[in-house]
């Protein structure tokens, strides 16, 4: 047995339909006249004439990615693959590599030999930024991906990503970073490990 659903009562004017039509028409007509004849700019128009007019984006707008730089200009990225693992669109491609013999970073961290983001496939969800333990990837450029005629133009490589500045012009991150061997480094390193 189904449960009987009580239908809403309709008043006489609602059932006669025409008065309701008149009501609806009055509403739409009032919008029409207001928007057509009030000063051309406003009225209640909610859309803008993009690209001539542009809205200001919120501060946390997620634009094209960038890779943040260290003091020496190399990427902060340690090629941990957290971002490419988190990425739901699977559009980040990273090939990690070891630092060379004698490099103080060798044995501590890797670096991305190849770092490519397919901006056509990206859904701009920001998961990569959330996942990154090193504050190495950010979406604070405030830019749209500029249009292009070829798909390849949307594959941003490491050099390009590194060169993109944040909306405030900086290519670094405001968060501090401790290089291996740095005495202020809070963790354990080779010298302090007691081995």
């Amino acid at each position, binding site marked *: 047995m189904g449960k009987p659903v009580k239908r809403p009562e309709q008043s006489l004017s609602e059932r006669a339909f025409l008065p309701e*039509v008149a009501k609806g*028409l009055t509403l*739409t007509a009032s*919008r*029409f006249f207001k*928007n*057509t004849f009030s000063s051309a700019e406003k009225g209640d*128009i909610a*859309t803008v004439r993009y690209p001539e007019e542009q809205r200001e984006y919120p501060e946390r707008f997620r634009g094209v990615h960038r890779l943040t730089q260290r003091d020496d200009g190399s990427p902060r990225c340690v090629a941990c693959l957290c971002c490419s693992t988190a990425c739901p669109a699977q559009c980040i491609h990273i090939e990690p590599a070891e630092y060379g013999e004698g490099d103080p970073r060798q044995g501590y961290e890797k670096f991305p030999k190849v770092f490519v983001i397919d901006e056509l496939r990206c859904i701009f969800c920001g998961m990569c930024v959330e996942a990154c333990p090193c504050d190495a990837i950010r979406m604070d450029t405030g830019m749209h991906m500029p249009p292009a005629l070829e798909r390849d133009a949307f594959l941003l490589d490491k050099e390009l990503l590194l060169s993109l500045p944040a909306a405030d012009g900086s290519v670094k991150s405001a968060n501090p970073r401790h290089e291996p061997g740095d005495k202020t480094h809070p963790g354990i390193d080779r010298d302090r490990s007691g081995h």
Partner: protein
Amino acid sequence: MSASLSVGQALLAAAGKSTFILGLVFAIAPLLVWAERRQSAMIQDRVGPHRASIRLFGRDWRLIGLLHPFADSLKMVWKEDFIPPGADKVLHAFAPWISLAPALFGLAIIPFGPAIYFEHLGDTLMLSPQGVPCVAGLANGVLGCTAAASPLATELQVATLDAGILLFFAAGGLGVVGAALGGYASNNKYSLLGGMRAAGQMVSYEVTLGLTLVGPLLVFGTLRPEEMVRWQSSSVFTWGFFLQPLAFILYFVAAMAETKRVPFDVPEGESELVGGYFTEYSGMKFGMFFFAEYVEVIALAAIAATFFCGGWQVPLLTDAGFVLGQLHVPMSHGSVTALRVGGFVIKVLVLIWFQLMVRWSLPRFRYDQIMRLCWRYLLPLSLLNIVVTFAVIVWLRS
């Protein structure tokens, strides 16, 4: 039509009038595409399309989006004209024509202006006490007839027929064939369903449409549209709208259903039928269905203006100029005619605007609701209107 016009003159006049009415339609139809998009934008608090531009004299002209219809039609001309495999090629090609031609044909009986006397364009004309047009002049300070008008009058109407409005119904009845054939010839289930829905809906509303206009016909006592407009000349309150308000509403509803537009657009319901009977049409063939729809909108407005809004009558404007009580502004026949044609065009535009308002305000009916509305409400009401009108006329005459 006066017998003293030579064949050549008559042909010339007919060509001129056809050109005017076709020109009007071909001018209003793109305007309608534009109006539909911009008006809906205004209703929905949007800016609407305004970007199509043309580069002339070193700058881009956008003309508040008026160029979009032209861009659209260019696009349609260049699109692939696809005929689905298994379709009936001949019928598939003919259906859009069968849809468009009757819609244009019906416009032939619309009187878009009063009878015009080409010899008297500069004179002031008036009706003599016997009801015959004559040249007016001041005799002893009073406006009166000074000379008989030339008998060479040209009705501003392509076809002056005794059958008059019946021709319009006959042509309108053919329109359904185009939609049904288009659906049938496409070899597509959705098209066929759309065609059947269109046929069912249009045939049903055809009945109501005809019967609603019987009321005004009884009042005017003629089938000739030009006579009807003259009948409504004495004041605004003799316009069909005031004498037959119920018929006006019924006519408007039924005619909107005939145009197959929202809220009566189930024949092309996108959500369940893709595009209805023109699913399989592309390019200019689709454009013709589209155009036929707009011609029907214009025809609806033109008939409504003729029957219910005094046709080319402009309030207070008589043959001899504006008259308000003692005040009389004499005007030449030429300018009076121009004003009246202008008045007719404005009425048509306002009625079209109203149709667009309805189209963007009301949601679509279900198919059973459409049929119920037609057979259970509109039809009995239109019959009631006829009976009441008839009774009142008999009562007034006795």
